[in-house]
């Protein structure tokens, strides 16, 4: 039987007999008594449990990533290097992250502080901290209820991109993180990380009911909130075939297991509407663990990735031992939390086609907080306008308006063939009430959803008038001073 093996604060660790759904957080606190890492919510929303994991980015280069240890199941760090707040102080010397936090009075009650220090550690070692908004994005996953955000951000600003010659720099230089295959069991529970597609098909032949998992940002909640003990999990992390991110035929192939952090970097130049949604999507810690495949396969009506991909005309590529099939994304969603995936089949890629000439495209998310919040309404729009100013194609996709992410077909039809003007948009919007009968819930009433859905299209018209595919214009937030 295989053992769980990884490095904890540079020391090798081997474990057997632990349930494979033991979270990294519980392991740290209860098993090895490293209580510096705190639990605040046990669902990835507060960041108090943030630790750093040495990962590989989409190009295979080593990268230090801040993750919520409450969502990481132990087998997910097989072979990896995990660092906790206890690793920061080295040789009797406090880390610059610690010095700055203390100096700026970045703690009040201090309970959130270790998690904040670890989120700052990632910022400290990032090579791309070249714009102030990136600091916003880096730190938005850590809640502080005494709310010392300003001093926290000042401290983070001091350390971002410093890349000191510390133990982490040495690890980044030396380590070559590769996901490792694993077949682990304890008690009645099993966790497989197949190392090849054939190994995956073998597992699926034997266990057709196996559940797939990647970063666990959704599935782990069943463990931490409902105390579920899923008998068999299959991680797709060690399959290089699915971990692709590349231009393809003028469009893009997005591997199902690509971390969203990497996809966001890629999309900045390659696909601005997608980048905008990823900026809204969630915290750095979540994007460091969440994947396109995971987000689409949960088939939530309010999954943030679906509307923008629907609007861009994306196709899902499904693979099984028998081969490959392509499904337009609108057909991939078959009902509330139901997809077109058959037995023994995985979502391998999402192919985004080349965008037609004259396309105007953007994505929106309406929620209370911008990231780390569930959308009341989200939307992805693409309208193609020809040389005469007529609409030749319209794809208006919404989340939060129906049981699945869906296109507003009647509204689209009312646009096609018409001149792309404010009057056309206003006239077409009358049809949106026929497309959707949204529900009322605590995120918004039916009236509110219908109203905002219309306003988003109005906003889209204005925002794309001069620039067909606008980038997210973003200054830094008020709490960051530009250095």
């Amino acid at each position, binding site marked *: 039987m295989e053992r769980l093996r990884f490095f904890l604060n540079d020391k090798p660790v081997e474990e057997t007999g632990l349930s494979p759904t033991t979270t990294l957080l519980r392991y740290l606190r209860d098993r090895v008594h490293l*209580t510096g890492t705190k639990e605040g919510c046990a*669902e990835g929303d507060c960041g*108090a449990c943030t630790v750093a994991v040495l990962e590989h980015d989409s190009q295979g280069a080593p990268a230090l990533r801040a993750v919520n240890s409450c969502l990481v199941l132990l087998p997910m760090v097989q072979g990896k290097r995990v660092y906790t707040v206890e690793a920061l*102080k080295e040789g009797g010397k406090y880390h610059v992250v610690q010095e700055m936090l203390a100096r700026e*009075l970045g703690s009040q009650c201090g309970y959130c502080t270790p998690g904040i220090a670890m989120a700052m550690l990632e910022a400290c070692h990032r090579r791309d901290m070249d714009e102030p908004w990136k600091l916003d994005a880096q730190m938005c996953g850590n809640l502080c*209820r005494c709310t010392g*955000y300003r001093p926290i951000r000042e401290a983070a600003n001091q350390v971002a991109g410093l890349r000191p010659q510390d133990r982490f720099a040495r690890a980044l230089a030396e380590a070559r993180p590769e996901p490792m295959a694993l077949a682990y069991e304890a008690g009645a529970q099993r966790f497989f990380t197949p190392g090849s597609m054939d190994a995956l098909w073998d597992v699926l032949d034997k266990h057709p009911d196996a559940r797939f998992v990647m970063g666990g940002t959704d599935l782990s909640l069943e463990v931490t909130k409902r105390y579920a003990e899923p008998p068999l999990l299959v991680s797709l992390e060690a399959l290089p075939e699915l971990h692709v991110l590349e231009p393809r035929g003028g469009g893009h192939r997005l591997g199902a297991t690509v971390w969203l952090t990497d996809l966001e970097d890629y999309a900045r130049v390659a696909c601005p509407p997608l980048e905008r949604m990823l900026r809204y999507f969630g915290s750095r810690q979540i994007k460091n663990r969440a994947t396109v495949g995971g987000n689409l396969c949960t088939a939530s009506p309010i999954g943030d990735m679906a509307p923008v991909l629907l609007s861009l005309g994306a196709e899902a590529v499904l693979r099984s031992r028998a081969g490959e099939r392509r499904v337009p994304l609108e057909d991939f969603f078959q009902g509330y939390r139901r997809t077109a995936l058959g037995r023994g089949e995985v979502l391998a890629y999402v192919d985004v086609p080349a965008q037609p000439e004259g396309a105007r495209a953007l994505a929106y998310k309406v929620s209370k907080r911008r990231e*780390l919040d*569930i959308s009341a309404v989200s939307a992805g729009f693409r309208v193609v306008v020809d040389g005469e100013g007529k609409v030749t194609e319209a794809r208006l996709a919404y989340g939060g308006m129906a049981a699945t992410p869906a296109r507003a077909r009647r509204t689209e039809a009312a646009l096609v063939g018409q001149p792309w003007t404010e009057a056309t948009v206003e006239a077409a919007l009358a049809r949106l009430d026929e497309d959707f009968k949204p529900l009322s819930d605590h995120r*918004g009433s039916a009236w509110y959803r219908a109203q905002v859905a219309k306003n988003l299209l109005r906003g889209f018209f204005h925002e794309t008038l001069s620039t067909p595919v606008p980038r997210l214009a973003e200054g830094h937030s008020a709490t960051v001073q530009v250095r």
Partner: protein
Amino acid sequence: MQDVKDTSDPRASNKPGGEQQQQQAGGPPQPPQPNPGPSRQQALPYGIVGAGLKEVTRRVPEDEPPPLPENAKLKSIGKPVSRLDGIEKVTGKARYTFDVQLPGMLWAKWVASPHPHARIKSIDTSAAERYPGVRAIHIPERILSTAQLRDPKAEQGNRYPTVRYAGQPVAAVAADTPRAAEAAVKLIKVEYEPLPHVSQLEEAMKENAPRVFPGPTEQPATAGGGGAPPGLPQKGNVRGPDNKPRGMGPRGDVNKGLSESEVVIEAEYRTQVQTHVPMEPHGLVADWKDDGLTLYASTQFVTSVREDAAELFDLPKSKVRVISDFTGGGFGAKYGIGNYGLLAIHLSRKAGAPVRMILDRREEHVSGGNRPNSIQRLKLGAKRDGSLVALQVQAYGTGGVAGGAGVGFCHSTLYECPNVLVEQYDVFTNAGPCAAFRAPGQVQGIFALEQTIDELAERLKMDPLALRGKLDVSGTDDCLARAQERKVGAERAGWNKRRPAGSDKGPIKRGLGFAQSQWLYLVQPSTACEVRVSGDGSVEAFSSTQDIGTGTRTILAQVVAEEFGLRAEDIGSHIGDSRYPMGPASGGSRVTSSLTPAARNAAYRCARELAARLAPVFKANAENIVFADGKVMVKGKAGSAMPFREAVKKAGFEEISQRAERRDDYEGYLFKTPDMALSRHGIGGVQFAEVAVDTETGIVKVERVVAVHDCGRPINPKLTESQIYGGVIQGVSYALYEERHLDAASGQQLNANVDQYKILGSRETPRIEVILLEQLGAQSSTDARGVAEPANVATAAAVANAFYNATGKRIRTLPMTPANVLAALRG
């Protein structure tokens, strides 16, 4: 009467208390003269530093230290000293109750009722008892933190406590591992007889609504300002009216006043239920041993934990020790032992092992406390010149199964008005109990009152700031502070550039708003502090008080350091242990006001004793020995200076120690009990908010807040600013995002997490500019007051007034979610 030269007679004022209240039967008794015993007449600095400091002469106890000058002339007090425990926090070494892991410790978990209202017919724990690793099971015989039946016989014949909210603990398990405890609670079979329930405020007010309690109830107060006044009438679920919140009001004849008014403003306001969401949930580790009980508590008041445990388990206090090294936030909700503590102690006694019982995030939301919601109807009558004639408020709110809903005391204390009638009612619902929350009631009340005052200003075409200048209650420290705060705040915020309401043409509309804040100046008279000097020159201070994040260790050290001419880092600052002299509760902004005078008094006496011991060493009189810059010297003889430690060693003693108490405020109090005294002066501030409202999506952004506050003498401006940032941010979070959603059908909270219960994150944090007044009130040996509440009080009101200035529409419902905003804009 004390000799007060330039402050008015308290009884002539409208501020807290006043004549009417003292005449009423059942009102707080007339306080005795402050500080009986030998005294001296002492001249003290009085006023706002930099804005006309004067002198007053007051009667001061003979053994009080000489008055401190303004901060600029001090070495340690008033300096932005870094948090002494900052390093422990950034290294993860700071041990919270959540982190306590004792040898053989068991993990406890409770069974929560899925029903919001039910009788429990039977509980079968046999399967859970057999589960491997289970060491003890306990079924609670009583439920804490809720209102209690005035007549317990109103509900008889039940073996188990009636379930009154979904999430109420029913039974608890202690096991070797968390997993075993989680698995075992699932095996406890509970047979419920569901009863009709009601979870929505207005439903519960109806005459035929299901009764949450079968008879009238009482809700004891907590030191944090929770609880409800005793003896009020109760009809169905509606208890009240309370017409003198915190002993203030009513006055005059409000109907007569309204009939004499030339302008009447009338409106209804609604605020939501907010939960505390401390990052560290409520919890306790109990270690029951034959020779005594040790409790590790995440608490705002070590003393209250010891008192509860001693009382409920019939133990002498000497057998109960409470330790609280670090508390991960509290905001008013962490008093006493709570149900988790009650269960942990029982389980520890049964299992003969330490037991850790800490709530998870869902349990914390549901049962850890909350700020009650409100429906407030205000009627304000005024003359055309702006003077107020009448203010009538009717308010209903629900704190679930606990009393304590209300809208504060601001209506009687903020503005001059001869006729005031506030009637506030508690409405019980089948929902988790409320608890004190960073200015209980006052936040809700000011949200409505300050919008009403703005409406009046607009109706009379007066500047809102000028109107408030006319209306401020006069003759108190507050009035002095508020005038100065408006002046400097308006300048900083650019008030003179404020545009008429609804000036922007595009979909994004911007505006600037203003509101005033006020809270009580409270003191805990039972506060004491001990200061020791060891023969090696170590100086230590001891108080049982705790630090919930405000920086208590640091300010304690700063005050003591000042007397010895040392740095704060040189002082051993020991808190969070019930074995130390009694310290104040971290609630109601009373730690700094209570602890620092006691600490200074002890340090002063200890320093004088040390001087006497050093006198022979220096061959000088004790009164000529001075401590400065880490040295001891003879006054006027720089050449005699010797490093502090070196000098102390020469004195040749093992240890000297002095203990001192918090003396009464020199001017006395409005009223005083052994654990709380209330000044007629308050603390407060003003806030200006700039907002941007997206009228297409309904998203509101608060872009900038200018917060000008007073807190007496700031002991550490950096820590004080931190608290003000925190208060503002919590206020913005309350204004925009936070709201508990209960499902009416099931009584379950739909967002008992931080995924859907949204609190403000760092990106949404506005630019916050803090201006801090140094105001000396000539009341105590440090003249320091707290600051926690006021920073939170005015924010939502300032944001709402800015919303009006941006859009030309009033938003009278909180929170300002996109949906509520679009609804307000439509209206």
